Each structure stands twice: as C-alpha cells, then as structure tokens.
C-alpha cells in the first residue's frame, strides 16, 4: 500500500533543471533505495519530500490526500522525518533532551517532565537495541550513536517515512551492520525507509525496491531481486562501465618509505598512544591498504606521518633513503608527501574559493615566485586538471562548494597531485563519490602508481580495499597486527583480522 506518492515533481536551481517530471511512490513496510550518480537529483527529491526545498511543480499525496510541506518541521509533524548527520542535534544537550527537542513532554503548567522523558527515551532506544547513559551530553558519543538518536527522535514524532541520505558514510562496518539491523526493524514495524547510498553492497543488503534517477529523470523503479548489480549500474550511469576495478599494472619497485617503530600520541593527552610502534615499508608503484575498526589508529597514522599532528611523534621514518622527521604539513609537502583526509568538507576543500584556487592551494609557492601569484599560470594548470580529472564545472572560477561530491573529491585529488608527490596518503578517497567517479578515481590511482608514485590507502569498502591494494596491513588498537599479500587476502580473513578475532599470522 502506498503511503506516499509524488507526481510530476519539477525543480530547478538557477539555470538548469535538477528534477524533471519525476513520479515516485513509497510503500509502508519497505526499504526503498534511491540510486543514481551525484547530481542525479536524489538529494533534491528527498529534500522536497522532507519539506526542506520547495518544489516548482508537481504534487505530493500522503495517504491519498494532497499535501504541501512548508518546512522540515511541518513534514515531521505529518510523519516524514529525515535523518541528517548531526544537523538537527544539539551536542551540548543530553541524549534524552535531544530526543524530545521540540516535542517535550510537559506536565500541566509545571514545565518539562524530565523523568517521563528519560523513561520514554530509554524505551525508544531499547527498541533500537541501544543502552546509553541518557544524562550525558550527546557530544560525548560517536557519530554512529548520534545517528541512532536521530532515529529515536524520528520515532517520537511517529514518523512513518524515514529518510536516510548516505547514513553510512561516516560509520565503520560494525556500526553500519547495526544500523542495517535497525532499518530492518523499522521496516518490520510497517514504517517506510527511504535510503540513499552509493555502495552497491549496502543497496542489495537492504533494498526491497530501487528507484534509479539519472540527470533529474526517473529511469525506473525495480524490485531489488529483479535488478542485478550490473544492470543497476548501467541504469545509473546510462552506459556500460565495464570492470569496476582496473587490473593493477604497477609492479612494486624499491622502497620509498620506511617506517620503523612509529608511534603517534593520542590527540587528547600525551599519555595514551593512538598508534604504537608501527613498522612497514612502502615501495615505488605500490598501493598499501590499511584496514581496521574506527579508532584502530589508521587515520592517526596518516596524520602523524604527514606532520599534521606536529613533532610529538616517535620512531624512525626514511623517505627515499633519507631520514624524515614529520614536523608540519608544509615541510612534508616539500618532501613529496600528500594527505587526502577522509572528510573533504571539514579538512579538504575551501568551499568558498574557486576550483582553480583550491587546486593551487597546496603548491602556492610554485605558483607565486617572489610572493606574487601568477594567476594565468594558475588558471592554465587548473584547466589542465579539469580536463585530466574530467571535472564537471562551469569554469575554473566556479566556487568549489557548488560542485557535486564526486567533482569536489576530484578537485582535492588534483590539489594534491599538483604538489608532485612521491607518496600519497589517501584516507577514504571515494567516500560520498558516485559510481562513475569512483571508477575514474580507481583508474587514476592505478595510473599514478604506474608512474612510480606510491599510495597508502585507507578505505572502509572491503571490495575497494581488496581490489586496489597490493598488500594489506591490519591495524587493531593502534598496532599493526597482520599483513596480507594480495593472494592471501580473502574478505573473511581480512574482516576477522580487523575485528581482532582471527588468529594472528
């Protein structure tokens, strides 16, 4: 039974249409996946549904009655809730207060009934299989828990349609598995879950039906069982992509980076170490993959090597045969290191600056001999990068913040390649990137290693890790535990080692 129907939805921002005559329906008790490349219109469609954007044309029916949402809170009152990452939560308030924010339980004239709220909150979180200290501020909990709290909040609003836009992008495998369990419970409770994801594996673990959008139009809605992955990808991209991962061409050569007993202090205090005594070699042309749970120290290892955490690191590092002491990003960049962080919005892009200025940011000295910026040189380099990385932008002067996720990621990659690095530290290079752009990033990674560059790779996508890495190092609680050659690395082995449950060796 359809709870929700949308017909002839149209929307445009500025010049181009983003959605053209999209029809769509959502049923009670289903997980409905919206699939499509970045810029296909998925997010715009669910934002219209959730009242965050106004539509230009078209109609929305809820239980067969025509409705119009003026705002997200208006939509929430009618039972449609969007789960964002953090955005509607107040991190300084307690878990219980967050869940009832805007819907406080009030005793007649006596203010908020905190006890009743706590009781109800405990019950709701129990339904989600969560047991938290409700009186702690929400900011004390990891992102995964915050998401669960958002879901609990949606339940308070008696949401019947729950929208999740890429909810797993900041979760590790265990946390994601738990979220999927909750999604299934919601579905079994006759609620509808709308789910947006770029990860095929997730889509097929959850979806009952899949609606594919491309260039603002609906390609079709399919039963998940009737749509094999390659046909889904073809529907999203509009063409056959061929193999998802390139065959690795590069042959590892002599070592470029030697790391011995490398330790990184915990960001909070000096006493604990987030990376302890890590040792490994990285060779020319090699992709060395890192796997481990969140908190296993992978990202901290990258930051520590790059000098982003200052000089408080310990151990010996050799870069191209010479001693290297991580000190500060500028010095590391000069020595041929580049760090792509896992959060381009927070630490990769300067959203308000243009494509060209973002691309030159890490190699400004080369673009400004004597301190004077050569803007024409900068523009030429940017134009070359736009072509080489196949970036869809109106011009190199366009603000980066207005590009789609995949194109933003390519801009950050271009920025680092512009520094002519020998060793690339890539932390989740394809996070929030659509299938087509992922494909290109894989090809480029293979190309860079073929030129002799070396890559350290972190990725939470197992398929990506296994396909791209020549060797895999498993980290657990700050230590490098196990290493696998490409031939030994099976999904089961790697996951077991990452969880720390498998026998070592």
């Amino acid at each position, binding site marked *: 039974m359809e709870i929700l129907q949308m017909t002839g939805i149209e929307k445009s921002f*500025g*010049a181009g249409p983003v959605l053209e005559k999209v029809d769509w329906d959502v049923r009670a008790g289903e997980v409905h996946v919206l699939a499509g490349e970045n810029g296909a219109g998925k997010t715009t469609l669910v934002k219209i549904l959730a009242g965050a954007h106004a539509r230009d044309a078209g109609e929305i029916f809820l239980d067969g009655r025509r409705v119009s949402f003026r705002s997200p809170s208006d939509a929430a009152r009618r039972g449609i809730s969007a789960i964002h990452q953090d955005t509607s939560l107040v991190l300084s308030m307690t878990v219980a207060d967050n869940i009832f924010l805007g819907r406080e339980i009030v005793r007649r004239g006596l203010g908020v009934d905190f006890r009743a709220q706590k009781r109800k909150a405990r019950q709701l979180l129990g339904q989600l299989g969560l047991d938290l200290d409700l009186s702690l501020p929400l900011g004390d909990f990891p992102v995964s828990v915050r998401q669960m709290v958002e879901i609990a909040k949606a339940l308070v609003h008696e949401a019947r349609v729950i929208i999740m836009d890429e909810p797993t992008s900041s979760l590790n495998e265990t946390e994601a598995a738990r979220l999927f369990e909750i999604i299934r419970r919601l579905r079994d409770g006759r609620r509808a879950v709308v789910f947006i994801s770029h990860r095929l594996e997730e889509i097929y673990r959850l979806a009952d039906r899949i609606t594919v959008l491309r260039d603002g139009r609906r390609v079709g809605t399919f039963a998940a069982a009737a749509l094999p992955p390659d046909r889904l990808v073809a529907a999203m991209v509009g063409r056959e992509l061929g193999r998802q991962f390139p065959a690795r061409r590069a042959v590892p050569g002599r070592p470029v980076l030697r790391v011995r007993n490398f330790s990184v202090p915990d960001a909070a205090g000096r006493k604990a170490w987030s990376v302890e005594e890590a040792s490994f070699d990285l060779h020319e042309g090699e992709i060395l993959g890192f796997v481990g749970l969140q908190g296993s120290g992978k990202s901290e290892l990258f930051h520590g090597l*790059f000098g*982003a955490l200052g000089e408080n690191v310990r151990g010996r590092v050799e870069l191209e045969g010479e001693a290297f002491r991580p000190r*500060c*990003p*500028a010095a*590391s*960049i000069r020595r041929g290191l580049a*760090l792509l*962080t896992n959060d381009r919005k*927070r*630490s*990769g*892009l*300067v*959203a*308000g*600056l243009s494509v060209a*200025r973002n691309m030159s*940011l*890490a190699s*400004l*000295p080369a673009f*400004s001999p004597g*301190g*004077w*910026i050569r803007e024409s040189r900068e523009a030429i380099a940017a134009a070359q990068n736009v072509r080489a990385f196949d970036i869809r932008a109106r011009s190199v002067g366009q603000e980066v913040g207005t590009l789609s996720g995949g194109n933003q990621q390519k801009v950050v990659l271009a*920025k680092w390649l512009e520094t002519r690095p020998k060793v690339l530290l890539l932390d989740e290079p394809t996070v929030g990137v659509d299938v087509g752009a992922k494909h290109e990033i894989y090809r480029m990674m293979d190309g860079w290693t073929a030129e002799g560059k070396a890559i350290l790779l972190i990725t939470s996508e197992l398929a990506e890790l296994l396909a791209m890495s020549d060797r895999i190092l498993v980290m657990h609680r700050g230590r490098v535990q196990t290493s696998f050659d490409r031939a030994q690395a099976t999904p089961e082995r790697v996951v077991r080692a990452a969880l720390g449950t498998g026998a070592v060796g």
Partner: protein
Amino acid sequence: MKAPSSGASQGGVRRALQSSAVRALAALAFVFLLGLVFNADGSFLRWSTHRDMLRHISVFGILACGMTVVIITAGIDLSVGSLLGFTAVFFSLLSLQWGWPPGLAVPAALLAGAACGLASGGLIARFRIQPFIATLAMMVFARGMAKWISGGRKISTAVQLPDGSFQYKGVPGFFQSLNSKLLGENIAVVTLIFLACVVLTGVLLAKLRPGRHLYAVGGNEEAARLSGVPVGRTKLLAYGLSGFLCAVAGICQAAQEQQGDPVAGSTYELTAIAIVVIGGTNLMGGKGGIGLTLIGAMTIGYLEKILSINAVGEAPRLMLTGLIIVGAVLFQRVRK
C-alpha cells in the same frame, strides 16, 4: 533554451545580482539616487559636497581596510577605535610635545600600532583566544594606554612652562599638509591616503601569496593548515596590518584635529565593521574584498552626507543608519 532571448537576459541579470560587487554597487547607486532626489537645493550637485564626504569617510575607510583583512580570516577586530585613539595621542605627544620630526614620529606611531595589532594576533594565533575576546581586551587596554600616556588630557601644542603658564607652539607643517587639499582644493590629502590604503590592501588580497592565505584560513582553517598554509603567521599578518592601519588613521585624525585626544575613535570600530558588512563581505570569512569595502565606505559616506545636508537631526539620522544597515544586508542575501 525554451525562450532563448528573454531567458538568457533574465538569467544574466540574475547571475549578475549574485555577484557581491554588483549588489554593493546597486546599493551605492540607490543611495546616490536618493542624493539626487533630496539634493538640498542643489548642494548635492556640487563637487565640494562629494569632496567633504570623501574626506569625512577617509579615517573610517582606513580602519575598514584593516577590518576587511581581519574579517576575511573569519575574525573581528574590536580594538581599531581605541588603537586609533592611542596612536593619535602617541603621535601628538612625539611631534607636538617632544618635537620629534615627522620622519621619526610617523614610523614610531606606525610601529606602535602594528605592535598592538600583533599582540592581539599573537593571543589569537598562539593562545587560541577568540578574536572577539582578544581584541575586546586590546580595545580596553589601548584606551587605557591612551589615557595613561596623555595623563587624561588632550595633547595639543600647548606646553606648560615651569611657572605654570601655557606657551603655544606653532602647529608643525606636517600636520598642516596632512590636513590640506590638493589639485586645486578638489581632494583632501587624507582621502588620497585612504585610497592608497585601499590599493595596497587590494594588492595584498588579490595578488600576493599571503593574501591568498588569508582567504584560505578564513574559508577553512583546517584544510588550509593541511595544505601547508602557515595559519598562525597569516593571522598575525591580519591583525598586525589592522593595527598598522589604525596608526595611519590615528595620524590622520591627529592632523585633522591638530591634537591627540585620548577618547578619539570611540565606537569607530562599529562604523568600520558596518562599512565592511554593507560592502558585502561576509562575517563568516573566506570571501569578500577591498573593492566591496570601498563601495561600502562610499555608501555610508553618502548616506550620512545626504542626511546632514538635508538637516536631518541626529536622532533620526542614527535610526535611519541602523535601518539602512539591516536593509543592505538583507539585500545582499536576496536569492542566494
């Protein structure tokens, strides 16, 4: 594509209005039009009115140049008014009372201003004190210094002799020439100094590597840091330059008043911020430019001039200015 001609031109206008510079110019043009309508029996049509407006706005404009640089780094500098007061007093003390030649007094005052700015910048960059707090502290501190070195009195050419009587020395030529007008009395020297500050700040922001650093730090400090941008030094530059320009403004103010008044410049920081904001530079940082500030300074300048030539009283003038600030900011936001 459906309606080629009208669609294209409409889109063109809309796109043009998305540019901050066009919006700022539109606001300025609107105020200018007001002046043409309410021209006070033609006095708005005389060049001397415009010359006086430019002269009046120059000191504020010089402060606003530094404020622009600071705001681009996503900071704020509340100390500019007090630093103007302090440097005006300091400069007057050196040149009027101690008889230092301008070749020594000017650099000394500029150094003092820059040093105060660097101190604020150091608190912000090194000790991670919020710019609002650090410069609030400097605002109070600098006002205190101004009163301390002047003994709470205005520093003028009057020198008290041992017998208690006052002797009046002549005002140095440097003061006169700073306060004069050039090109057949058609433009004030302080206006030229303001324009020079605009040009220098503009070159820094648009052409020089440290200028690019300012935008990057204001736009996304963490991304800038990881890209090798010297974040701390960039902030020092911003506040140091702001302090330096406060001293430039302070010297001009002293020359115009022919004395150093320890309470000079009170609330000037608010005017400087208003100029930057009306120009369209966003307080969130990472965006904006000196051209916008120049336009903003002229917008406020014309507004005040039009109100004063039409003999609007101070009370309605202040209320109107408040409303205009809100109106300008709302206009900047339309359809963004």
